[in-house]
């Protein structure tokens, strides 16, 4: 029993990581249609921001909390700059956008290598995140790791904040308006170029927040973004493009699926099975998971 609960929790925590890395992409790719290959490097920028802050702020806990808003701003600023310099000139040329952002991602990787060196670096997690909480005691205890709970809370907070922002604020309404009908939004007096840049800022900023969370899981390196970006795109495509709820459901579904399969087989076999399931699912539902009714992925 504790094994099942423990594995479910592990799956949810993997899902939370997936959700965090895909959330920013659900804005820039899902809402704006821009295939940003440099998204993973914005995550990397967030992770390195944590590393730099930890060098200058002594307390590991304080520096982590400070890193969240700072990484959001750093990655967001990088994203806004990319949008302003390159992407806005390429909105109707998706292949060019893909190539250009790929080039930018390679440049950012090299930049990171030049600034921080090629070897991966680590951050120290604060003491209150290294322990765990015992949920069920006894001979066969069920424990939840604090760092995983933190990432889960962060992911939930980010999703709630984003969906509220899209639904309730005037900026959110403008973003949705531009996504639904760009021309009509423009003749209604909305500056679509400004909305584009703001959306890109938000999406990239969320990537930065994801980067901070990833420092709690593994090492920070120039190529960390390349491994992440594929998972992020998978979540968006399966979830249904432009659908926040699809992203959320699929992130957790893939996380639980990965952890359950991994428990009964091996890491590599579980990865293969998850990818096979995704391919099969997309054959059946090429537009991705759109509505809550089709939650039958797992």
């Amino acid at each position, binding site marked *: 029993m504790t094994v099942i609960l423990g594995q479910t929790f592990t799956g949810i925590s993997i899902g939370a990581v997936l959700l965090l890395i895909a959330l920013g992409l659900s804005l820039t790719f899902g809402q704006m249609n821009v295939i940003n290959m440099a998204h993973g490097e914005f995550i990397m920028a967030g992770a390195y921001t944590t590393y730099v802050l930890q060098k200058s702020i002594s307390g590991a806990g304080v520096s982590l909390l400070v890193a969240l808003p700072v990484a959001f701003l750093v990655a967001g600023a990088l994203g806004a700059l990319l949008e302003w310099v390159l992407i806005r000139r390429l909105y109707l040329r998706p*292949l060019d956008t893909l190539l250009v952002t790929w080039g930018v991602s390679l440049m950012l990787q090299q930049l990171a290598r030049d600034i921080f060196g090629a070897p991966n670096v680590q951050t120290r997690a604060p003491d209150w995140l290294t322990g765990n909480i015992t949920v069920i005691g006894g001979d066969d205890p069920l424990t939840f790791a604090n760092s*995983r709970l933190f990432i889960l809370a962060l992911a939930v907070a980010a999703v709630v904040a984003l969906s509220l922002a899209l639904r309730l604020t005037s900026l959110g309404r403008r973003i949705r308006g531009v996504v639904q009908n760009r021309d009509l939004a423009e003749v209604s007096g909305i500056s679509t170029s400004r909305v584009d840049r703001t959306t890109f800022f938000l999406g990239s900023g969320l990537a930065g927040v994801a980067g901070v969370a990833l420092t709690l*899981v*593994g090492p920070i390196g120039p190529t960390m973004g390349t491994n992440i970006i594929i998972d992020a795109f998978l979540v968006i495509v399966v979830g249904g493009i432009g659908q926040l709820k699809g992203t959320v459901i699929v992130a957790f579904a893939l996380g639980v699926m990965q952890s359950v399969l991994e428990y009964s087989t091996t890491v*590599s076999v579980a990865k293969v099975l998850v990818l096979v399931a995704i391919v099969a699912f997309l054959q059946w539902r*090429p537009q991705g998971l759109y509505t809550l009714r089709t939650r039958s992925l797992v």
Partner: protein
Amino acid sequence: MSSQPEGVHLSSRSSAFSGLSAFSGPSGLNGPSGSRSSRRRVLAGAAALATAFALTACGAKTDAAGGSSDQAAKADTSGDTVKVGLLNSLSGTMAISEVTVRDSLRLAIEEINASGGVLGKQLKPVSEDGASDWPTFAEKASKLIKEDRVAATFGCWTSASRKAVKPVFEKNKSLLFYPVQYEGLEESPYIFYTGATTNQQIVPALDYLKSKGEKSIYLVGSDYVFPRTANKIIKAYAKANGMKVLGEDYAPLGSTEFSTIANKVKASKADAVFNTLNGDSNVAFFKEYKSAGLTAEGMPVVSVSIAEEEVKSIGSQYLAGQLTAWNYYQTTPGAANTAFVKAYKAKYGKDKPTSDPMEAAYTSVYLWKAMVEKAKSFDPEKVKAASDGITFDAPEGEVTVDGASQHISKTARIGKIGTDGLIEQVWDSGEAIEPDPFLKGYDWASGLS
């Protein structure tokens, strides 16, 4: 150039075009249904493009690694200086470990140059980055031998990289000195192994666990040749010695998701864990191990790829109390080690620890020097012929080259990681163990090689 890479280039080009053609239809941001289908096409194009790039890259690498001339490249030893190759991953997941080996090799070369060089010639190191990528290792090995015409090459860490460069060195009849402990069951006429083979590291570590009364173990490793072969040996040992192997898990090299593996280890209730993870996967593993509530007292982890440098970057708060199996620690007593540690810290900084692979790398350069001086030639064949019985007063103690297997004798040492990040020896084999890469001296290992 053979015809195969050509074919790869052609097919990659055509798939790139098919990717392009996906975009010939109207695409734009407006129109809900139209834009969705075009998004699909964009994705298909992206996938095609990515495949094309991957294929092109592979094609290029295959060509550089495999397409060699028929004649062996001769080392250039005519001038006042002799070039030696340093082949280590300076980037990627293995850089955490391999950069320190490169630094140690440089220290040895510098010392040798300061004391008059080898056969009166100064050594000139040529450093190449294997980038934690095995085809790149083969490509760079080929470059060192053919373009730089080095007299010998020092480096490689993972067995996957060694296996990738082995045919390159054999084909070109050039020498490689490999400084890392490995899974044994290998002999190459052009490789000298100055790290431990299994009977000098893994087998003594298992003996140690057995003597401590540990009856069941769980195996965790990276998914490539060293952990898989090492675990095969461990399972054979366990079967013959009444130990139970409760589970076996492999994570892809560079993997950082270990929560499930930690749960499995925990649920197995094994007495100990035998860890053959490599590179900074160890960081994620030990973080998760601690998060799962597992401790060094309750379930000790014996690691064979974590030395002082890795302890420093993983963080001793995750590792204190865990066990390692090596042949050398920074704390190993002896005048040779005191001098080595002092020289290393003077060159690279007071906070830089020394470790087993670094020591084996340092030793390998001196062993090569002694072989060359005994042979009075840089010619690889003469150097090999002179190798048997060469001894060196290494920081780990005196080592002797076994000419037949091209391995060296080493003392096995089990250590415990302290809170200060250093490793204290808790057991040693007393004397240097003769290398036995094929485990011929062990009955239980008869089915392995």
